[in-house]
């Protein structure tokens, strides 16, 4: 059997998703992954970047410089399947929460006013290149990673999960945090985490990104009914969704339909 080549790269990020990938190593899963894949470039563990073509490339983080964008494009051209690996690559993640118009002021706040940045702000990989699949999460779920790699190994089509965290949460028999007054984003967030946060008592922050056809307006209305102001709703949603479509537009719409609802 010809093994598929799997390349792993990381750009600017916290490297937590790579740590999760590493955590697969002790398990029997790793033996299975190794049976199908030849891992040829893992920067954390291996020094030499080989100049080859890749069947699969996992890219973690977001590019922070023009050089990294060029690198990203090169990897895209060399990869049959390119996977955005983790929230930073998929949706921009925590660093993308920044307000672009405040960036100058925040740079001065952190570094003083004489400091000049040579770096660009975090954006999802899809801002620069076409991606074939999103392995979402902050951090990714090792079980989901394994499943997708095995699907690729067997040439199965890759499908994004079409249901929300709520489904996984119900299946775990968790108490509903939203009903208990927590601004949980489970109803509109893509599944895949196994509802790990609500199971431990933490409301969903939306790190898997919005599920396809998410009823974001409905979510905003529900949060408003829960007693959150528009400003608070924006803060709840922009931790992971700042670069995602939707909620800003709906927050504006909410003004129009305010009278009808309340």
């Amino acid at each position, binding site marked *: 059997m010809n093994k598929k080549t799997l390349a792993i790269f990381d750009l600017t990020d*916290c490297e937590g998703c790579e740590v999760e990938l590493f*955590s697969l*190593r002790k398990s029997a899963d790793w033996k299975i992954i190794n049976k199908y894949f030849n891992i040829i470039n893992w920067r954390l*563990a291996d020094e030499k970047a080989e100049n080859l073509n890749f069947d699969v490339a996992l890219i973690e983080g977001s590019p922070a410089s023009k050089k990294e964008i060029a690198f990203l494009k090169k990897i895209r051209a060399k990869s049959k399947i390119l996977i955005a690996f983790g929230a930073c690559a998929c949706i921009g993640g925590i660093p993308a929460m*920044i307000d672009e118009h405040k960036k100058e002021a925040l740079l001065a706040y*952190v570094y003083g006013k004489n400091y000049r*940045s040579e770096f660009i702000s975090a954006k999802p990989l899809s801002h620069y290149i076409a991606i074939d699949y999103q392995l979402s999460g902050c951090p990714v779920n090792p079980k989901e990673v394994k499943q997708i790699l095995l699907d690729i190994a067997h040439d199965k089509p890759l499908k994004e999960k079409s249901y929300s965290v709520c489904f996984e949460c119900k299946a775990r028999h968790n108490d509903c945090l939203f009903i208990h007054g927590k601004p949980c984003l489970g109803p509109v967030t893509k599944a895949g985490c196994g509802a790990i*946060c609500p199971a431990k008592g*933490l409301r969903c922050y939306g790190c898997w990104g919005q599920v396809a056809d998410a009823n974001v307006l409905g979510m905003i209305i529900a949060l408003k009914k829960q007693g959150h102001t528009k400003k608070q709703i924006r*803060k709840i949603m922009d931790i992971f969704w700042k670069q995602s479509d939707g909620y800003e537009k709906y927050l504006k719409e909410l003004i129009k339909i305010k009278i009808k609802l309340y």
Partner: protein
Amino acid sequence: MDVLHHYIAKIEGHGKLEINFKKNKINLIIDEGERLIEGILLNRPYYDAPFVTSRICGVCPIAHNLASLSALENALKIEISPLTKKLRRLMICAQIIQSHTLHLYFLALSDYFKSDSTLSLAESHPELFSEALKLKQFSDHLADAVAGRNVHPIATAVGGFLSIPNKKILQSLYNQCHEMSAIAQKTIKLFASFSYPKLSNPTIYLSLSANRNYAMISDKVESSTGETFHIKNYTKNIIETVRNDSPSKYSQYKNNNFLVGALARVSLKSNRLMPQASKIHKTNQDKLGAFPAYNSFHNNYAQSVEILHFIEEAQSILEKLIDDKKYIFKPAEPIKLKACEGRGVIEAPRGLLYHYYELDKSGNIKNCNIITPTAQSLNNLEQDAQILLDNIADLSQKEKIRLLEMLIRAYDPCITCSVH
């Protein structure tokens, strides 16, 4: 070639060595974008800080989470329960074992075998790596059980926990401690057996101080020069400077370079190590010569000693929790908000980690400051690298690069944290 730019592999984050062979000068280039985490947190509610700051680093997220929680609890004058203290201490044990094991076996070890890749070393020494993975897995399970996940904690909250592990899980972790301790002892033996490159730089070591135990959360910092300072004065003692060509900041303590982390801790607190770690460390000192001899390569040995220490500590805490008849979950008390400010410092795997928050009366963050361990040790690292380069002036360029890269890895720097 007069000036060489060399990409440093096998460290957390991205950095490059710039070596001017003609002038024998070295420069460490920090190659990561600013994420402006302190700026991002402004005007956000206080409870987002532990969640967001753990994302500064995927290798030491627990450390950031706990530093953030203790700073907020300090600001809001919240006393945490003895149970919360014990569980957080377990999280620190998990964090240190995770991070040190990952670094020692999967990043640093190949340097000492003069192997150019961890993967080929893993193939030639399968039993060694199988045991290392057992250690890693144990620490992951410990973090999973208490923090809710091995990376980026879920179950922690300002004032306590959102949920706590059941005793069955604690018991199964306790049952593994004996085997883990045996692996950790072998790890120390391995790292005590290496002949470390010669390097001497009489610098200052800083670590947390407490009367009795091996302090990991405290409000007092002690130095190898015999001084102490309270964390409310940390910005007066740890002075950060900005260089216009680097996204990381650089620290000094009273105009001196200094070192934090495993080597500083083991050097300053060797008399407070747990029994087995202490015993083995004493025996090794005869072999290693005067420890630490201000040789930063010894940091890897110190990390191996700490792995055993924290397994012993985890075992002792787990035992207490299992025997505790009052082990029940109590949610944290409701929080009374007011305009306030507070500081927290903890020992992260790579050393002292400071968090500071100022809150307005609604609990929104008005000011924030984070000083990471790597940002504190960078000046010292550059100084060490220059001393090493001067010492090895006769060697080939290739050998110089090898030794310099090895020194940087011995520091276990986290460029990701240093920039944040």
